[in-house]
């Protein structure tokens, strides 16, 4: 494509804009925990120094590394706007979504450490095996269970009944909570906060009739009673779900059998 109008001006307006834009770029160091089982059995920290706008997100920084410096860097992301839950990772020691974390909010003067989430097997770089996580999710039967004939119209529900489980409908299954739970780190048999949150979403739904079954599943020795209320899950949740509160409500429902 030819750009005749921009030639012969010495300094084009487009270049001016680019230079003005470059003025507020800062140089940050991304310290990424990299692992490639085909190269080494050990993971290692690799530093990448990149110029970036502090108002950009960690995901943009990772993209810059992958697209411009090292194409072998592997991480999951899909929607890149905090909805799909693919890019949960441990940034500066805390579980966050890379697409919702701004560079300026995590002290860009120091190296920004980026690790895969803990408690799940690392497959490569920042990609972990999510199978155990989704197995626990499937085990609590996260779907509507009803008895009798299907109504010809929609299943109606009052606004109060809907509000009862509104908080736990926000879950995007990013695994930030489950992989921040110290009980889950040691023993993957524990259901983990995310599975309990999604059980809570149906247990407290007035339209659902499988609450008894779900409570029985979570009453098991690896169920809600393994929760030590450390609140790591509540701190980690990128959607602001009160995870520990939801777990406590399931515990109370198990004791009182009222839900």
């Amino acid at each position, binding site marked *: 494509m030819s750009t005749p109008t921009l030639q012969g001006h010495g300094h084009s307006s487009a270049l001016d804009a680019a230079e003005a834009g470059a003025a507020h770029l800062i140089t940050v160091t991304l310290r990424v925990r990299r692992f490639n089982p085909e190269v080494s059995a050990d993971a290692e920290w690799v530093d990448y120094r990149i110029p970036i706008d502090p108002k950009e997100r960690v995901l943009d920084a990772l993209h810059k590394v992958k697209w411009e410096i090292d194409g072998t860097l592997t991480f999951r992301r899909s929607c890149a706007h905090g909805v799909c839950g693919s890019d949960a990772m441990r940034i500066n020691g805390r579980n966050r979504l890379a697409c919702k974390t701004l560079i300026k909010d995590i002290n860009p003067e120091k190296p920004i450490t980026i690790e895969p989430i803990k408690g799940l097997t690392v497959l490569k770089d920042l990609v972990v095996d999510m199978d*155990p996580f989704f197995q626990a999710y499937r085990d609590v039967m996260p779907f509507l269970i009803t008895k009798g004939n299907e109504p010809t119209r929609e299943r109606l529900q009052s606004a109060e009944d809907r509000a009862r489980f509104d908080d736990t409908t926000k879950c995007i299954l990013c695994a930030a909570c489950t992989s921040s739970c110290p009980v889950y780190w040691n023993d993957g048999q524990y259901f983990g906060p995310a599975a309990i949150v999604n059980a809570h979403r149906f247990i407290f739904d007035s339209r659902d009739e499988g609450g008894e079954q779900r409570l029985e*599943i979570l009453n098991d020795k690896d169920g809600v*009673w*393994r929760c030590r209320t450390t609140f790591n899950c509540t701190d980690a949740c990128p959607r602001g779900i009160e995870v520990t509160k939801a777990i406590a409500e399931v515990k109370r429902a198990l004791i009182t059998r009222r839900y």
Partner: protein
Amino acid sequence: MSTDVSDAVELTGSSVAPYSPDNPAPVIEPPRARTKRTPRSSRTNFELYGWLFMRLSGVVLVVLVIGHLLIQLVLDGGVQKVGFAFVAGRWSSPFWQFWDLAMLWLAMLHGGNGLRTVINDYAEQANTRVWLKTLLFTAVAFTIALGSLVIFTFDPNIR
């Protein structure tokens, strides 16, 4: 990209033999996979009652232990007064016998159950878990039995 493409994947930095199609890496079972060794769901309320017991006994223990410490260490001249005669005097009353017995049982069961959950949380191998729990349950049973024996058969005239 390197040019010497071979079938075997070299794992540098590990002493394990290189894996290849003929010598595949061992299959790692995902933690929640249902295998033959997975214990069946227990369908009991044991953990529920354990959790409730911890809360209730904790509240009772606060009263029992703080009362005990006050009597033994603070009131009436502090720890200096505690001797055979002091203990004999207190245990002549069924109230203090019951107090100490309740404190012994609740503290041992509360602490024992707490340690059981710690072992469940931190011991990584099934064998370690079994051995630590055996040790724990033996110690708890022995202490409760010995303490109860002393409280019930205490003889103030022993010489």
